[in-house]
């Protein structure tokens, strides 16, 4: 048992140390320095945006001997940028070895796959998916001014996956009438990560967009804050990890109805427990018992 405790302690302690429990990169480009994934998924809405990215240098014992070059490519990284690649400002070896981490900015619509032969941002509506790599490379050696020739080390690249393909529209399979709410069961395509409910009072022109709901394992959502006895139209939209929104689902209608739960059933039956602080008088018998025992001890 002691050894079990020691193992548990050691494993929990190691999880706290950066680079021991987590899969951090030694030389790479990432969305954040602590990021454990080499992917950045963006959607069509990110097209005109710029993003700050991080380069990370944790090569212990190896020194950068020349500038670190950073570039974006559609193909594989290699040791240096190609003709069609987009290159960013280089980082001096002194900064690389002293700071070990730094930032640079990319414009999404300047990535090489989006500028070639297209005047519309991100290649326009024709381009639905595209992958770029943000690369880095630096000549490095154990001793830069010795006899050893520096070798070019290539960073673990960041993969920027452009996904403008929206998920399929959700299919609403059931509407359950609840107290001041409608519960919708639905099915969605596998790339859906969130669902957005829209609701309007039947007869109104416009839908009101409700708060986006993260999709777990469940496939139901409750649209609440409605009036009992009023009929509402409801529809859903699916959202994927690149924030692409699907087309609208079919519109379904439902009228919330007043329901009686267990508390209502108890009160309707004639139960007189008032709930809340009104139950405090139940303490009186105990207080009386305490008072009685105290008198006897005197």
């Amino acid at each position, binding site marked *: 048992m002691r050894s079990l405790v020691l193992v548990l302690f050691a494993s929990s302690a190691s999880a706290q140390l950066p680079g021991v429990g987590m899969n951090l990169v030694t030389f790479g480009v990432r969305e954040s320095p602590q990021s454990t994934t080499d992917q950045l998924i963006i959607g069509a809405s990110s097209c005109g945006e710029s993003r700050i990215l991080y380069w990370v240098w944790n090569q212990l014992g190896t020194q950068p001997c020349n500038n670190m070059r950073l570039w974006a490519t559609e193909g594989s990284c290699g040791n240096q940028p190609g003709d069609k690649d987009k290159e960013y400002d280089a980082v001096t070896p002194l900064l690389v070895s002293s700071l070990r981490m730094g930032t640079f900015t990319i414009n999404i619509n300047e990535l090489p796959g989006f500028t070639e032969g297209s005047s519309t941002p991100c290649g326009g509506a024709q381009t639905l998916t595209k992958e770029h790599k943000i690369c880095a490379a630096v000549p490095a050696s154990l001793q830069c001014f010795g006899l050893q020739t520096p070798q070019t080390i290539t960073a673990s690249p960041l993969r920027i996956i452009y996904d403008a393909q929206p998920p399929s529209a959700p299919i609403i399979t059931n509407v359950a009438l609840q107290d001041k709410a409608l519960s919708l069961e639905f099915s969605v395509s596998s790339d859906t990560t969130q669902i957005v409910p829209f609701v309007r009072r039947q007869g109104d022109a416009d839908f009101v967009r409700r708060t986006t709901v993260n999709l777990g394992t469940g496939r139901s959502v409750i649209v609440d804050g409605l009036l009992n006895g009023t009929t509402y139209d409801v529809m859903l939209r699916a959202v994927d990890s690149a924030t692409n929104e699907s087309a609208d689902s079919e519109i379904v209608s439902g009228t919330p109805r007043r329901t009686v739960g267990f508390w209502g059933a108890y009160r309707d039956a*004639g139960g007189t427990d008032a709930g809340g602080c009104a139950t405090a008088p139940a303490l009186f018998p105990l207080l009386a018992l305490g008072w009685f025992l105290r008198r006897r001890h005197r």
Partner: protein
Amino acid sequence: MMVAALSLALLSQIPGQVNASSVAAESPRTFVLELKLGPYKPLIDNAVFPNLGPMDQRPYARVFGDTPMLMGEVGLEYMIWQRFGTISAGLSVAYAEKFGKAVDAETGLKAEQSTGLRILTVRPGASYRFDYLALKYKIPLVPYVKGQFVTMPWWVVNGGALEYADGRPGEGVAFGLAGTVGLSLMLDILDQRLARDFDSSVGVNHTYLFAEFNLQEMFRSSAVPLLLSSRHWLFGIAFDL
């Protein structure tokens, strides 16, 4: 000299003497830890409801049916006195919940909405365990009794939110007293060596399986209270620490 050495060697092989020196003494007993599980059905439907006829379904049965709630409980007691049995004082915390379908207010039919009763039970109290025979003569049965003060915060949800009826919230705290009678089976008899190892390595002196009957009587807060009194069995495992 040779005879003396031989005698010493022979003496060292006598089993009684070897065991007496090698068996480690039991560590001091201080706490009792109990983990319990069992059915719990409050006597809500035993109240006389003025708005219901003799054939009408009572509230608990109407919403939840006739099945009990499932109660899980954890208790920890400190041993105050250990001579002819053990007297302990401590606290136990239990949780039980039950869900059913709410009823449509107009049609009276089951609606597609869940309603649930959730009950937390906190019971400080004292116990007496007659473990003298088990500890001294290895008779593995330990009867015990307990007396406890009961505090039960409860709340009712309908559709995921606290239910209100007649403008009153479906939540409250009930108070009462409980008495328990139980019987423990000391498991050390199954493997005494393993039991000793369990004590020397982790500090668990003895392990028990037990069954206990709880009689819980809650004070009435009004004429027709939400009566959480019960008579229920709990089963579990206990450790002397």
